[in-house]
């Protein structure tokens, strides 16, 4: 049997062409958009033709697109240099590190509640298929799935932060608490700060609302997936066999159904991650959360080419890697496909 590492590597390797394609497409699309990163910087003031040309030359935007792409690609491959933001003139890679950790922290926390709850509710629905509980749960998850994230977020902020004021409106931590940037996860970095306990609580307090909002769509997806796959599996013949040979219902549920029903949920990891990221764009904008989603939006609005490229590319990579991870793990979870 081949090792897990090998499988993973093979998966990643096979997705290299699509990764390259993402990179090329983003590069091209963002440059084909009307608007200019330099003019966007100067706003109402405008810029004379000479100066515009000067800056375009300085940034290398005066060369033909294909040559620009080759230069960019060469830098990425040889030095892993993703360029410099046209707005802040800081390295895109440094920005990426900060934004990525903020998004990961939020997404992981969102998953940590939505995944178990979604899974549990899905099972509950399947076990009570057709009853009031099932119908009620279906309605609730449909509600969460179809509700726009920004609306739900705005309502929650209005209720809990603005009106009752038990949560802060935005931010990651109380501005008076200073947390150094070690891992980029405030919940962890808090323990290395001057006031670890207070900082940790404050970071918790700030993350609850956005994590709640961000988790709603994955919750609905996972609930529906679990329900469907549990029902599917319970129709299988071996379940009937198990039941007819007199196995206790509990054991059938937990061993035979649950294990098999988990497979399609597991394989849809990529979909869940993608839904988290698209939700993050809105959630982060709403809560002033300095993450990938907000970075992408602001960079796009400023035509900050290098930042947009890096943001889209790494979001793409995250989805691809998750899928590769899932695929390579599949053999271990489902021994039937091992060969």
């Amino acid at each position: 049997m081949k090792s897990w590492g090998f499988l993973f590597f093979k998966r990643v390797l096979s997705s290299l062409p699509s990764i390259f394609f993402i990179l090329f497409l983003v590069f091209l699309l963002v440059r084909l958009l009307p608007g200019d990163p330099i003019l966007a910087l100067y706003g109402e003031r405008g810029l004379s033709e000479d100066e515009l040309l000067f800056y375009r030359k300085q940034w290398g935007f005066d060369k033909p697109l294909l040559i620009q792409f080759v230069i960019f690609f060469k830098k990425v491959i040889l030095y892993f240099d993703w360029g410099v933001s046209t707005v802040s003139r800081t390295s895109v890679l440094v920005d990426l590190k900060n934004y990525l950790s903020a998004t990961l922290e939020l997404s992981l926390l969102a998953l940590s509640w939505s995944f178990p709850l979604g899974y549990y509710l899905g099972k509950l629905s399947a076990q009570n298929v057709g009853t009031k509980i099932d119908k009620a749960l279906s309605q609730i998850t449909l509600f969460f799935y179809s509700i726009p994230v920004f609306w739900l977020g705005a309502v929650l902020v209005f209720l809990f932060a603005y009106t009752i004021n038990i949560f802060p409106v935005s931010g990651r931590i109380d501005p008076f608490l200073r947390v150094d940037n070690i891992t980029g996860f405030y919940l962890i970095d808090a323990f290395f700060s001057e006031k670890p306990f207070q900082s940790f609580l404050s970071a918790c307090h700030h993350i609850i609302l956005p994590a709640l909002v961000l988790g709603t769509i994955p919750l609905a997806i996972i609930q529906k997936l679990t329900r469907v796959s549990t029902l599917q599996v319970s129709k299988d013949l071996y379940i009937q066999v198990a039941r007819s040979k007199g196995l206790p219902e509990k054991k059938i549920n937990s061993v035979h159904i649950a294990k098999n029903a988990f497979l399609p949920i597991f394989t849809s990891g990529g979909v869940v991650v993608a839904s988290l990221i698209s939700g993050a764009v809105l959630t982060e904008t709403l809560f002033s959360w300095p993450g990938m989603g907000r970075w992408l939006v602001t960079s796009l609005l400023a035509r900050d080419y290098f930042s947009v490229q890096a943001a889209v590319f790494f979001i793409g990579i995250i989805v691809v890697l998750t899928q590769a991870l899932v695929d390579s793990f599949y053999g271990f979870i489902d021994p039937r496909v091992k060969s």
Partner: protein
Amino acid sequence: MYKNSFGKVNSIKFYFFGIIFMIGLVFLNLGCQKKQIASDDSRFVYCTEGSPSIFNPQLATDGTSFNASSQPLYNRLVTLELGTFKVKPELAESWKINAAGTEYHFKLRSGVLFHTNHGFAPQKKFSSQDVAFTFNRMLKKDHSYHKVNGGSYEYFKAMGLDKLISEVKIVSETEVVFVLKRPSATFLKNLSMDFASILSAEYAQYLTQKNSKDQMGFKPIGTGPFILTEYRKDSIIRYASFQNYYKGPAKIKDLIYAITPNSLTRFQKMQTLECDLIAEPSPVHWETLSKNPKLQTFKQDGLNVGYIAFNTKLEKFSDSRVRRALSLAMNKESYLNPIFKGEAHSTSYPVPYQFLSLEKRKHIYNPEEAKRLLKEAGQEGLKFKLWTLPVSRPYMPNGKKFGELVQQDLKKIGVEVELMTYDWPTYLSKSRAGEHEAIQMGWTSDNGDAENFLQTLLSCDAVGAGSNLAQWCNKSFDEFLNTAEAKVDDSEREALYKKSLTVFNKDQPWVPVAQSKVFRVLKKGWLGYSLNPLGTENFYPLSKAAL
């Protein structure tokens, strides 16, 4: 069939899980609730709208960067008095101007210290060396720092200083002379602007030795009232009071900029008192904020003008009668309530009334005359596209709505207006290329001088730059501006600018629409705040009232 095979609802488990979940939430909620940090007199949170692009104001172009750099961290040679826009000494104690108006001799303040920060401990005090370094860096293309951090001295160039200053001469430690190529009336005012903040020559030398010149823009050293202690992009900027500030340390010990781009979020954070001051509150929220008993409000006429520019290069707008007709047909007064919540006044001038001591007069609304003019020009049944501003600005908070109101008004004189827009970068580059027919735009003063409006927005030089959106080049208008520029006497200048305004009003390349108010809210208890209509925030004078 399967339903039955699964048996009864596992109600206990469901209940159990639900309870755990609820308890968890409540626990987190209660446990994490911010323990109200005892209100401290020396802490101040300013909720700003964005990240600064750089901490060196020479290289910045946006108010956000200036508020984060030039105001807390640096000083200028001179500063403007609030309200009157008269030049006042700051790092320069006094100055003399020669008779020809081409030499400015500054006597510098002595004993001013630079920050000790980022591992740098200054050995020298502020001197003429620093002034020379600051300006030579921008002026001389071969200066060792000219190209550092991108090297685009946009404001310096926009104010024409690169073509004006011939050299900066060091006379002694505390004396420096600026030699100009020709007299310039606005030179002193320009030196009060953010980009003219004084940097440390010694720090530059130190960074050169360390081979990390780039740090100049990101690890700033200045003479200002605050020291930068932490910056996290898109999240927070932290400053501490500079104990050796030349005017004495600030009362605020910890100054925090919480970066909050969304204006609704800023409003909510102000209402819940998470901020002490917020940047640019949206006019939609002014009324609610004014009614909050825990806040104090500041309001004043701003130094801005919102306008509609006609592309005068186009056949349909080439006749000034058409442009005048369109101006007469717009009932500007009726726009103030829906667009600005009444917090603005209509204007017919391309400059704020404060600059040239102009009267705040009401606009003449005369659709009959407009119809007559259109007929005379043979442009009855005119159709055109109006681009509506895609971003919210103090001079134009809601471009689309404003466009709709104009559309209705012009329909009454038989002119059909089609509204359209692009996102901001596209809007800018397409209008620069002259693709628009009529466009909404506006301007906020940089330096409290009329020249800044007239030259930037209406001169022939500005046509290609994308700031003269009417693409209007009038020789006699330009003549007035150029003559005025060379006059040092303010009253002579004022008279010339007023003459240029008559040319503008006759030719009407734009319809100036409104001049809006600026508004700030501050948490109650803070004293010493003054609203600067130029948009910069100075936190040095602030202190808590003794309770």
